[in-house]
C-alpha cells in the first residue's frame, strides 16, 4: 500500500504533459496507435529532460531511491497508468458516439 502511494505521488507530479499530448494526438488524428507512441515518446522525453537538463543530480528522485523505487520503475508506472487513462478515454469516446 505504501509503495502504491509512492508511485501515485510520483505520477501526480508528472502525468500531465505526456497525457495531454497523447490526448491531443488522439482527438486531432483519431488514431490510437499514434497516440500511444506519442505517450511513450513524451514519457521518455520528460525522463531525459529531468535526467540531463532539469535535475542532473537526481535530487527529486532520492526520496524514491531511499524507498527502493528506481527511475525505471517510476517512469514505467507513469507510462502504464497514462496508457490505461488513454485507452479508457478512447473506449469512452467510441461508446458515446
Amino acid at each position: 500500500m505504501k509503495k502504491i502511494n509512492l508511485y501515485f505521488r510520483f505520477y501526480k507530479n508528472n502525468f500531465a504533459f505526456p497525457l495531454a499530448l497523447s490526448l491531443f494526438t488522439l482527438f486531432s488524428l483519431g488514431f490510437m496507435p499514434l497516440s500511444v507512441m506519442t505517450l511513450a515518446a513524451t514519457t521518455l522525453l520528460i525522463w531525459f529532460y529531468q535526467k540531463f537538463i532539469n535535475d542532473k543530480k537526481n535530487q527529486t528522485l532520492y526520496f524514491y531511491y531511499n524507498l527502493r523505487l528506481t527511475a525505471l520503475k517510476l517512469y514505467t508506472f507513469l507510462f502504464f497508468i497514462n496508457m490505461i487513462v488513454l485507452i479508457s478515454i478512447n473506449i469512452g469516446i467510441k461508446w458515446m458516439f
Partner: protein
Amino acid sequence: MDVLEIDNVELNFGIKKVLKAIYFNAEKGKITGILGRNGCGKTSLLRIIFGELKPNNKLIRIDKKPLLTPLYKKEFIKYLPQFHIIPNSVSLQSGFHYFNASFTDFLIDFPNYKTKEKHRFSDFSGGEKRLIETYIILKSDAKIVLLDEPFSHLAPLYIQKIKELLEIEKQNKIIIITDHLYKEILDASDTLYLLKDGWSRIIKSPEELIHHKYINSL
C-alpha cells in the same frame, strides 16, 4: 550485516580523476567518519556506495561477500544527501510512515513538534527539515546509513541530540558520516578517514589532520 567494505574505487569526471584508489571499511557498532576538502569526492563516494553514481571501477563487499547490484535497490540502505529529499507536499507524520520510523519516539526527543504532525514539509524551515530528515533516516529500519553533512544548518542543541542518537543507533547499524564541521565528526566518529588527492587515509589521531594539511590547528 556487520562489515561494509569498499575497495578499488576509481572515479573520473571528464579528464579529472576524483577518486583514484579508495579503500575503507565500516563496521556495525562503530561510526565511520569521512573528512576532506571541498571537491575531494566525499559526496561522490557516498553516492557510489548508495549505488546511484557509477564509477569507472569499484568493489563493494558486505560481510566479505561482493555485491554487484546497486545497494539502493536493497532494503537495507538509506542515504541522506546534502539537500532535502522529502517532498514539500508530504506531511511530517507521513514522512515517518514512509521510512518506518517512529513518530512517537521523535516526539519524545523533540516534544516541540507535538502540534505539527499534520504540517507539510513546506511549512518547516531548512534547519528543521534537516533535523527531521536526519532523524528519519537514522531511525529508519535500514542496516546501513549514509549521512552527508547531517550537522549543517542545525542548532548546537540539535547537533548534540543527533550525536546522542548516533551513539544509540550505531549498535544496530553501519553508519558512515561526512561533514565539514570536523570537530563534530571527530567527536562522533570511532573510525576516521581522510580523502585527499583521490586517496583515502585512515586517521588515527587528530594531529594527523594537521600533518595532512586538512586543518591548521586543532
